[in-house]
């Protein structure tokens, strides 16, 4: 049920569309992380991607989750039907992206909003900032009010898209305007409680990845725990910044509490590209993937920055930014990382068990899942302290 598109006429093998396999996993299953077998496709939480015709929805999906180069999206044809993209096999994001064709008519009685909006975690509405967006705002209003009525717990996200062509002032102006109008429309019908988040995005730079990262993070119940783990890890290892990346999409699902510098994020994304590309050439696994349990990379820059990538789960890797002096204590960092990795696996295991029990937390685990601080008490002691071992 995939979209048909023409292969761009580039003879070189480097830029071939879809040259990266969808599934980056290992051959066999890893015990404890196998969380898809019991849940059927329709019961997984969903991300819905909606917007007017030609607003850029399919391109976003292709660029973020299928490693398509932004220039190649010019060859994508219009979507004609609802495209359900099940990413559970290849990406940590085990959400479904429903790409609605722009021409969907909600007021068609055959459109079953109960089925579609229940179980949706987030609804992303894409607005083309380079076009006149009055109609888009109208459609946005109709869509969110309808969805809210069915399921008030949906996160409503608005991507003000294609901003690569706009100047900075224009971007801010557009965002302000869209924000104003959308909220006014909602206030007019008494839906002030409906909260909208706005993002300025473009597929030609990293902003789309950043926006998606935030959307996915909001849907992650484990987020505070993961952030805490990262904080402890980096403070004990002399690391400046760490991101927990989904390798396929380059979305980061968690980071430590220090401010996110877009340049660092972009550099880490580029590092992932290098690592995957080189691994595909020299170290491919049977099914053509390149990322496995032993994946690791170290890049040293000439300004004493070191980038360190290490595998955490079959979908996730941690990318750390640190100084060369700190990296001299590599043994210490590796030991702390070992503790961190074990903790992350435990966190996800709890999630699996909860899901298998039909959403009821396992009684035996209530003590450890109730507060994140108690989960960390034992781990905290185990971390070798970077500061403690000062000479």
């Amino acid at each position, binding site marked *: 049920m995939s979209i048909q598109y023409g292969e761009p006429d*580039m*003879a*070189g*093998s*480097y830029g071939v569309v879809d040259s990266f396999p969808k599934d980056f996993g290992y051959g066999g299953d890893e015990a404890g992380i196998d969380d898809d077998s019991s849940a059927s496709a329709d019961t997984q939480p969903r991300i819905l991607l909606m917007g007017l015709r030609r607003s850029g929805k399919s391109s976003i999906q292709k660029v973020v989750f299928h490693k398509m180069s932004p*220039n190649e999206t010019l060859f994508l044809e219009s979507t004609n039907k609802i495209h359900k993209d099940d990413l559970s096999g290849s990406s940590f994001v085990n959400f479904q992206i429903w790409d609605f064709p722009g021409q969907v008519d909600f007021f068609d009685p055959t459109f079953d909003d109960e089925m579609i909006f229940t179980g949706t975690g987030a609804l992303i509405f894409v607005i083309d900032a380079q076009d006149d967006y009055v109609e888009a705002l109208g459609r946005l209003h109709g869509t969110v009010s309808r969805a809210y009525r069915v399921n008030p717990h949906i996160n409503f996200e608005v991507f003000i898209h294609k901003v690569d062509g706009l100047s900075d002032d224009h971007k801010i102006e557009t965002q302000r305007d869209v924000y104003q109008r959308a909220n006014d429309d909602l206030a007019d019908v008494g839906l002030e409680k409906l909260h909208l988040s706005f993002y300025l995005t473009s597929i030609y730079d990293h902003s789309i990845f950043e926006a998606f990262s935030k959307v996915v993070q909001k849907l992650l119940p484990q987020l505070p725990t993961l952030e805490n783990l990262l904080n402890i890890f980096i403070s004990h290892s002399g690391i400046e910044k760490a991101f927990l990346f989904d390798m396929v999409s380059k979305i980061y699902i968690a980071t430590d509490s220090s401010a996110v510098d877009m*340049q660092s994020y*972009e*550099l880490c994304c*580029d*590092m992932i*590209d*290098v*690592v995957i*590309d*080189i*691994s595909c*050439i*020299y*170290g*491919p*696994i049977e099914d053509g993937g*390149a*990322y*496995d*349990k*032993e*994946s*690791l*990379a*170290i*890049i*040293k*820059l*000439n*300004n004493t*920055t070191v980038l360190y990538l290490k595998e955490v789960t079959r979908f996730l890797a941690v990318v750390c930014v640190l100084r060369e002096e700190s990296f001299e204590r590599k043994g210490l960092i590796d030991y702390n990382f070992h503790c961190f990795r074990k903790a992350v696996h435990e966190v996800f295991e709890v999630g699996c068990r909860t899901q298998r029990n039909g959403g009821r937390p396992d009684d035996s685990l209530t003590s450890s899942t109730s507060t994140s601080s108690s989960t960390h008490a034992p781990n905290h002691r185990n971390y070798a302290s970077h500061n403690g071992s000062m000479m």
Partner: protein
Amino acid sequence: LCRCTPGDGGSGKTSMRSIIFANYIARDTRRLGATIDVEHSHVRFLGNLVLNLWDCGGQDTFMENYFTSQRDNIFRNVEVLIYVFDVESRELEKDMHYYQSCLEAILQNSPDAKVFCLVHKMDLVQEDQRDLIFNERQEDLRRLSRPLSCTCFRTSIWDETLYKAWSSIVYQLIPNVQQLETNLRNFAQIIEADEVLLFERATFLVISHYQCKEQRDAHRFEKISNIIKQFKLSCSKLAASFQSMEVRNSNFAAFIDVFTSNTYVMVIMSDPSIPSAATLINIRNARKHFEKLERVDGPKHSLHMRMR
């Protein structure tokens, strides 16, 4: 000294130059305009070599200029002449005429120069016609070039042929390439590497390589060059550049590091149980040896420069 010389206007030299030397990728070159005047740039290449790129706009008026007033200036002390032909050109006769004028100037001023012809933009020719057209062109050029011998390449910026052509040309410019290759092979065998690549530092062109077993991907040289150049571009946004890299998974370990003052080395080990430290020490020790190799030829080059 190398001269990259007049092809017809729009034959693609500037794009070519940008891609190989100035780190544009193919897609960006569409934004480059036609060269209006003679563009002269220096590229430090292999340390003590200076590549002089005269990118002459191919427009008629300038072509006339070269062969009269600028002639001696441009054609003196040339080691390599690279002439770029647009395969789609409608004015074959004129192209050949200018080419011959260049050859005459070369014969007079630098008779020992090596001549290379690039038949460029081959991607615009239908696939089944490419061999035919190229062979025909090659015949003509070889005939016209006598008594000088010319080596012809068919190229396009959209595939690996351009890269291969430049690599071959550069390979011939390296003074002691055979010795380099022997040493590289010994080095690779001692450290039990699967593959060792030697890159020129500025352009990341592969100038020498050793492999001990068949590799899956025949286009990997160009891919690696591209991958590294992309990453270098990203780093330059932060006013930094990368120094070294290690990438591994359960099947392999790759090390990219500064080697000599003009080269980078990439070592591929398929036995990932060998600790990184061991390989890194080996690379470091080999470095001193290879530096010595380069220094031996140093004085020769500077002498050549002074005679200019």
